[in-house]
């Protein structure tokens, strides 16, 4: 059952809310960014040798580690010519006092499903090339996301870290008969690099990539995923509150611009995108 998590509503918080909104009216933010400026992004790939692919992405102090393990299995019966992937996410209790040990709660499940949506609907992977023997044997990619340090907005660095791990992921090769080709490896066939931008809304103002100090003061927020052709491939309003209908178009435009900048950075470090 979904229930309202504890959230501070003290007097101090209200002062913070005022401050954040007043700064926004002047085009400023508490950490000296401009409204449409994401935090510093760093991308490291191949950080876990035992994984087939891995990436550590920081967005400010938020840090996401994604690892991919590959297994062989049978395809879904209605898609006999396609490989399979599944996304899991854990909000590690190391990362924040608001994360509890135990199986993923609704936030972890939500994160996994939003990343899955971006990767799947953004057609990031050429799944047909992950089929070894049609109907019998395909690659199965387990994309597992761990939030290591949480300072707000785990969506965008998680999508990016999943894509960086996929783009650098190595698979053992098999013959068409399903025999292991010793010593031969291939890359995961990447068709597109969907990325996401999280937009926060306070009254009539909009900002990107909220840090955790800002998240508490937002009226609401929304994650927009786009592919390289600027198609919208995923939307997920991820917190309570209202978005005035007239703001939606500019929100999409801002997301497009942000994702463009992120994509340039991703391409520079990872080499695709």
């Amino acid at each position: 059952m979904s229930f309202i998590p504890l959230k501070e509503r003290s007097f101090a918080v209200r002062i913070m809310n005022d401050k954040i909104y007043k700064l926004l009216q002047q085009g400023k933010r508490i950490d000296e960014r401009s409204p449409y400026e994401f935090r510093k992004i760093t991308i490291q790939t191949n950080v876990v040798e035992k994984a087939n692919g891995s990436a550590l992405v920081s967005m400010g102090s938020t840090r996401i580690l994604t690892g991919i393990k590959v297994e062989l299995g049978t395809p879904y019966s209605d898609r006999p010519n396609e490989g399979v992937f599944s996304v899991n996410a854990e909000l590690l209790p190391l990362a924040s006092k608001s994360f509890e040990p135990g199986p993923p709660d609704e936030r972890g499940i939500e994160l996994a499903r939003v990343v899955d949506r971006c990767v799947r609907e953004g057609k990031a992977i050429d799944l047909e090339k992950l089929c070894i023997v049609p109907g019998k044997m395909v690659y199965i990619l387990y994309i597992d996301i761990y939030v290591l340090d949480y300072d707000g907005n785990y969506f965008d660095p998680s999508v990016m870290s999943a894509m960086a791990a996929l783009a650098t992921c190595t698979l053992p090769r098999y013959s068409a008969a399903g025999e292991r080709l010793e010593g031969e490896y291939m890359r995961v066939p990447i068709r597109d690099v969907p990325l996401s931008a999280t937009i926060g809304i306070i009254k009539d103002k909009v900002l990107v990539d909220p840090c955790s100090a800002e998240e508490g003061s937002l009226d609401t927020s929304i994650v927009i995923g786009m592919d390289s052709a600027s198609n919208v491939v995923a939307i997920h309003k991820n917190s309570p509150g209202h978005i005035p209908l007239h703001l939606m178009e500019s929100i999409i435009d801002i997301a497009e611009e942000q994702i463009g900048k992120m994509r340039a950075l991703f391409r520079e470090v990872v080499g695709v995108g």
Partner: protein
Amino acid sequence: MEQTARPKLIDENGRRLDGRGPTDLRPLRIEVSVLEKSDGSAYVELGKTKVFAAVYGPKEAHPKHLSLPDRAILNCRYHMTSFSTDERKTLGMTRREVELSKVIREALESVVFLEEFPRSAIDVFIEVVQADGGTRTAGLTAASLALADAGIPMRELIAAVAVGKVDGRIVLDLSDVEDKYGEADMPVGIAPRSNTIVLLQLNGKMTKDEFRQGLMLAQMGIQKIYQAQCEALRKKYESSMREA
């Protein structure tokens, strides 16, 4: 399950598989006060999609350490019966049901005056009896009515519907088969009086322009649903007046 050829979803005359045009809603039936024991309840049927919602509360929050000193907590469970879908759904909550419980809860939170009931809890239960597309939006529509039926003070009602892209066209109120074989599914929940979005998701691929079209079409559909909601509430009050 065998590999199925993708069916043609819209014919040369612009008719959908069930005969609707692109901007048509499926037959809609809305009732309130349908369950005896809950504090408020509603039933929404949209084509073959059939959803109950029930509300209990405001009541004491339990366990206490989850209660809030300045407002009520709102709990929400979106759940499907095992036989509501083509393939039997496993018992227990799927990850999808967990996610939808969250987005529906967050939409409802946006319109309920929770501040009026500090330290209390309001429970909203949604049960999908049959799933033929648009269950989360039907569930949100029903839940909003069940809250009103329970007499919980709200800023306004919520009405919700899905739009999507099917065979290249933006259409209203996707059925299950359109969702499965179509290009995009976008559930939208709107608070009609303030003209604000309280639920928005997209699964699929749309250009920015198609997104704008879809959002407009959703608003149109939501107006109709909203009127049916108001009508259902009006009927109920009239009948309770008559009884009194």
